[in-house]
C-alpha cells in the first residue's frame, strides 16, 4: 500500500476553504437521499460526504458534459479538484481516456479538462443495492487513475499521493496543515475496511457471473431474452447516459461551421440509420441487446479496460425497472 498521511478533518476543511479561490472544487454532497458531485463553496465544505458509495451521476458527466459547444477548446480558468471519486468511475476513466485521448485524434475538450484536474479517489465503505464491482474483478477502493487516494476516519483524513500531480498538491497541503505519516494502526484500519467491503460485495453478488462469462452468455444468447426484457425498455437512453463508460455522442451543426456535442445513446431510434434508409438497429430489442453486446463482447475485443465497472447505475436509472444483473443471471440459469 502506498504511503498515507494523516491530517485532522478540521485542518482538511480549512485547507479546502483556502483552495476555493485557486480550484473549482467538485465533491460528493448528499441531498434528499442522493449523493452527487457538486461545486463546493465555503459553506458547502462540511457537507461533503466521504467513503460513501456513490455519486448518482458518474465522473464522465464532469469530463464530458451532457451538452457542450465544440467551438473553443481553451482550458478552464481554475483547475478542477474532483473529490470522492469511487473506483468504478476511476476504472471507467481508463476507457474514456482510450477514446478521447487516442493519440491519433485527441479530443481537446476532454484533454484540457483531464490535464487541468486533480482526481481524488476514495474508498467505498459499504455498497449500494446494485453495486457489483468485485464481480468484475475490481476493488471498491482506488487502484488506478487517481492522483490522490483519500479516506476519512472519524475526525481524521488520510491522504496518499499516487502521481506527481498528487504529490505537488500534498506539498501544498503540507504548507497549511499539520501533516504526519500514518501509523500502522491507521493503515490496518484502512485495510480492514477495504477487506470488509470486498467481502460484503462478494456475498451480495455471489450468484452473478463474472465479466468474461457474462460476455460468453450474451454472445451466445438468442433474441427471445432481448425481446422479453426489452418489452420494458422505452428507449429513454438513461442507461447509456448514466453509464460511466458509454461514450457515444451526437454532433449538432451550429452557425459558423461549428459543432455542439450532445450525449447520445444506441437505445435511441435511428442511432445507426444511414441516409439511404438502412438501419441495423431498427427494432427496439436489437437496440436493447446492442448495448450489452457492446459492453460485454465488442469493447473487450479491442480495449484493455472493461466496459462495465459494475457500478449498477444503469439498473438504478432504468425507468422500465430492467435489472441487467437479473438478465445475465437468467442467461446463466438457462445455459
Amino acid at each position, binding site marked *: 500500500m502506498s504511503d498515507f498521511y494523516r491530517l485532522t478533518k478540521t485542518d482538511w476543511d480549512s485547507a479546502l476553504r483556502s483552495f476555493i479561490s485557486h480550484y473549482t472544487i467538485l465533491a460528493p454532497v448528499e441531498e434528499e437521499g442522493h449523493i452527487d458531485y457538486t461545486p463546493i463553496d465555503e459553506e458547502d465544505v462540511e457537507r461533503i460526504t466521504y467513503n460513501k458509495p456513490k455519486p448518482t451521476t458518474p465522473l464522465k458527466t464532469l469530463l464530458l458534459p451532457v451538452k457542450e459547444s*465544440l*467551438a*473553443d*477548446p*481553451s*482550458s478552464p480558468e481554475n483547475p478542477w479538484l474532483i473529490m470522492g471519486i469511487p473506483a468504478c468511475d476511476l476504472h471507467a476513466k481508463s476507457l474514456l481516456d482510450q*477514446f*478521447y485521448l*487516442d493519440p*491519433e*485524434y*485527441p*479530443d*481537446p475538450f476532454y*484533454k*484540457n479538462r483531464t*490535464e*487541468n484536474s486533480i482526481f481524488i479517489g476514495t474508498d467505498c465503505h459499504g455498497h449500494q443495492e446494485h453495486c457489483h464491482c468485485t464481480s468484475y474483478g475490481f476493488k471498491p477502493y482506488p487502484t488506478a487513475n487517481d492522483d490522490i487516494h483519500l479516506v476519512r476516519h472519524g475526525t481524521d483524513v488520510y491522504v496518499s499521493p499516487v502521481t506527481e500531480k498528487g504529490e505537488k498538491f500534498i506539498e501544498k497541503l503540507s504548507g497549511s496543515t499539520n501533516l504526519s505519516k500514518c501509523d500502522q494502526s491507521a493503515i490496518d484500519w484502512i485495510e480492514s475496511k477495504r477487506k470488509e467491503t470486498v467481502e460484503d460485495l462478494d456475498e451480495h453478488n455471489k450468484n452473478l457471473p463474472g465479466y468474461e462469462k457474462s460476455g460468453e452468455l450474451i454472445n451466445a444468447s438468442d433474441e427471445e431474452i432481448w425481446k422479453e426484457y426489452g418489452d420494458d425498455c422505452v428507449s429513454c437512453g438513461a442507461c447509456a447516459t448514466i453509464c460511466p463508460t458509454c*461514450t*457515444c*455522442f*451526437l*454532433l449538432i*451543426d*451550429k*452557425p*459558423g*461551421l*461549428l*459543432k455542439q*456535442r450532445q450525449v*447520445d445513446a*444506441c437505445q435511441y431510434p435511428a*442511432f*445507426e*440509420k*444511414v*441516409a*439511404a434508409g*438502412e*438501419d*441495423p438497429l431498427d427494432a427496439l430489442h436489437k437496440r436493447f441487446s446492442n448495448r450489452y*453486446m*457492446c459492453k460485454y*463482447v*465488442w*469493447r473487450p*475485443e*479491442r480495449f484493455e479496460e472493461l466496459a462495465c465497472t459494475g457500478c449498477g447505475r444503469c439498473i438504478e436509472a432504468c425507468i422500465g425497472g430492467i435489472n441487467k444483473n437479473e438478465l445475465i443471471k437468467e442467461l446463466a440459469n438457462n445455459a
Partner: protein
Amino acid sequence: MKDHKNIYLPIKAEVTEVIDESPTIKSFVLKPEHEFAFKTGQFIELTLDNIGEAPFTPSSSPLVTDEMQVTIMKTGYVTDRIHEFKGGEIVGIRGPYGRGYPLEDMFGKELLVLGGGCGFAPLRSLLYNLSAEQDKIEKLTFCYGSKTPGECIFKPYIDELRQVPKFEVLRSVDKVEEGEEWNEDVGVVTCLLDKIEVNVPNSVAVVCGPPIMMKFGTYKLLEMGFPEDKIYLSMEKNMSCGLGKCGHCMMGKYFVCKDGPVFTYEEIKDQPDIWK
C-alpha cells in the same frame, strides 16, 4: 495552459462547379482554402453551415490536392440541400478520415472492380489512381451496374477509361426505359461477372455500391474462388464524427470511420449487420 487543436473544426471550401451526373446524382467541385490531400478510399465530412454534416468519399483523383470532387445522391436532409447548390457556396470539410484502398496489395495483380449506382464515386478515385499507376498492375476489369441508362454516372469518364490499355469496362442496367438508348448489358451487375476472364489466384476484387449489391457481389466473388482476404468492401455506415468516437458507425467491434471504411470481407464477415 496548453490549448489543443480542435479536431471538430472543418476548413472552408468553395463549391466552384456543380455537375449533373444523373437525375438524382450531382458532383460538386470543391476548392479548399488550403491544400487537402487524401488517399483513395478515405472519406471527408462535408458540412453545410448550420444544416448538417455527412460523410462522402471523394470521387476525384487523390493525386490532385488543390481541389476535389464529391459525388452525391439526393437521399436525405443534407443531400437534399446540397443538391440546391448552384456554385459559389462555402462549405466545411473535415478529414480525410479512415483507411482507404490498399494500393500496395493491388500492385502486380489483376484488379476486378465491381461498382453499383453511386458506388462508382469512391471507385472513380481509385480508378484515377490506378490508371496513373497502370504500369504497376496486370490489368483491371471494371464492372458497373445501374438501374437504368439514365442513372449511369460519369459517362465521359467511362469513355476515357475505355481508352486505357490495361482497362476493360463492362456495364449493365437493371432495365431500359422506353425511348432510352442502351447497347450494353441488361441485368443485375453480377451478371457481368459471368462474362469476364479473371486469373483469380492473382487477383484482387473491390466492391462498392448499395448494400444489396455488395452482398450478392461478394457472394458471387466467393463462388468464383476469390479468397475472403482479397475482396475489399467499402462499407456505408452512419459515420458522424469520423474520429472513432461518437459510436454511430459501429459494426460489431469496428468503428467503420476509423477502422474502415474499406475492409476485407475476411475482416468483417463475422460482425453483425454488415449488409444493412
